């Protein structure tokens, strides 16, 4: 089943930046909406454990998630509720709780996120990341390497 959860995903796209606050989450959201508009089956994975912005951007910040036999069931968002979203934000009991974890605990969660979400068949899975080049990034790339990793889009601002 580990293999199965990402087996139906045609293209995995990472949205990265060294710098924070340049618009990664904004772009990830808009990209997902645009691809959906073009008739594609889309999912978003938000691995920013400290600052998960995607749920609010898609107005599902109060959603809860549950598990099925094959893993976590994503939250369906967008006008036609057809974009699949998974974010650490959904697992926090209180939204203002800080996720104050060191690397090893973050790595364990990311690995679970990547392999345990029942995405189903998707044309595109967009992975939104936190700023930097650290635990989250290393773990995400390692966990995604066996799958259909299309590549990375890098976001910046002019300065």
């Amino acid at each position, binding site marked *: 089943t580990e293999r199965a959860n990402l087996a139906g995903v045609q293209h995995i796209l990472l949205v990265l930046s060294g710098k*924070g606050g340049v618009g990664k989450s904004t772009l990830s959201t808009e990209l997902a909406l645009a691809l959906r508009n073009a008739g594609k089956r889309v999912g978003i994975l938000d691995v920013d454990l400290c*600052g998960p912005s995607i749920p609010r951007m898609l107005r599902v910040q109060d959603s809860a998630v549950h598990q099925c036999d094959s893993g976590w069931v994503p939250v369906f968002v967008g006008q036609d509720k057809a974009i699949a979203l998974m974010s650490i934000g959904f697992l926090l009991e209180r939204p*203002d709780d*800080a996720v104050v974890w060191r690397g090893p605990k973050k790595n364990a969660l990311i690995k679970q996120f990547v392999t345990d979400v029942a995405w189903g068949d998707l044309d595109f899975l967009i992975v939104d990341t936190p700023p930097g080049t650290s*635990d989250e990034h290393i773990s995400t790339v390692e966990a995604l390497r066996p799958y259909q990793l299309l590549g990375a889009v890098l976001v910046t601002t002019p*300065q």
Partner: protein
Amino acid sequence: AEAAELRARLRAVRHTVLVLSGKGGVGKSTFSALLAHGLAADETKQVALLDIDICGPSIPKMMGLEGEQVHQSGSGWSPVYVEENLGVMSVGFLLSSLDDAVIWRGPKKNGLIKQFLRDVDWGEVDYLIVDTPPGTSDEHLSIVQYLSATHIDGAVIVTTPQEVSLQDVRKEINFCRKVKLPIIGVVENMSGFVCPKCKNESQIFPPTTGGAEKMCQNLSVSLLGKVPLDPQIGKSCDRGQSFLAEAPESPATLSYRNIIQRIQEYCEQHHLQEEKIM
């Protein structure tokens, strides 16, 4: 023994201020650099600026110190001096190429932070300012842990007005409370833009949920001030110059100076209270 080593090294530091934010790109490093410049304008004060953003160290460029190397002496690593009374340390100085990515996991980052605190020969310091990366992770836990050997006057938390920033900043405030780090207050950056030609004010990042002001009210923390957007700020940072010196008439400069003064007053008052207790 390690704690004793850190305590010894930091004994000559009078005030320590951490600059934090849950959110990236809100102006932590910009603020840290200007706080350092602002405090160092008093030549009788010795100021130290420590950049522990290991993945994205912005301070060397902002302070005009790109390409500088760190020297070792018998008494430890020497900070790089911008002015006689303003010393800087950053992982940026340790990289052989400016584009080298530091792709380290938590434990290695923690090790470097400890080394910075233990091995840098700051000398006598009136203000130690610590610039941090965004988030609430290894770096933040470590700096609070290691600095408990001395004491931290408090944290200045930086945000921008929009809810997407505030929701991360609330987490940061909760982090501070969790680790018992006093909060000096919140700075709202990019708070409006005044056109230099027509003088009209625009909200580039509208405070859809009341901005930092409402958040501070709700969470009972102090709002130290709001700083408007000024394109000169970004330019000065890119060129490694002090914005306060380059644009003394800007409304943003006035805001920064007021905020810096409030931080200074907080630290001095804190010190007096401590002395009373002792």
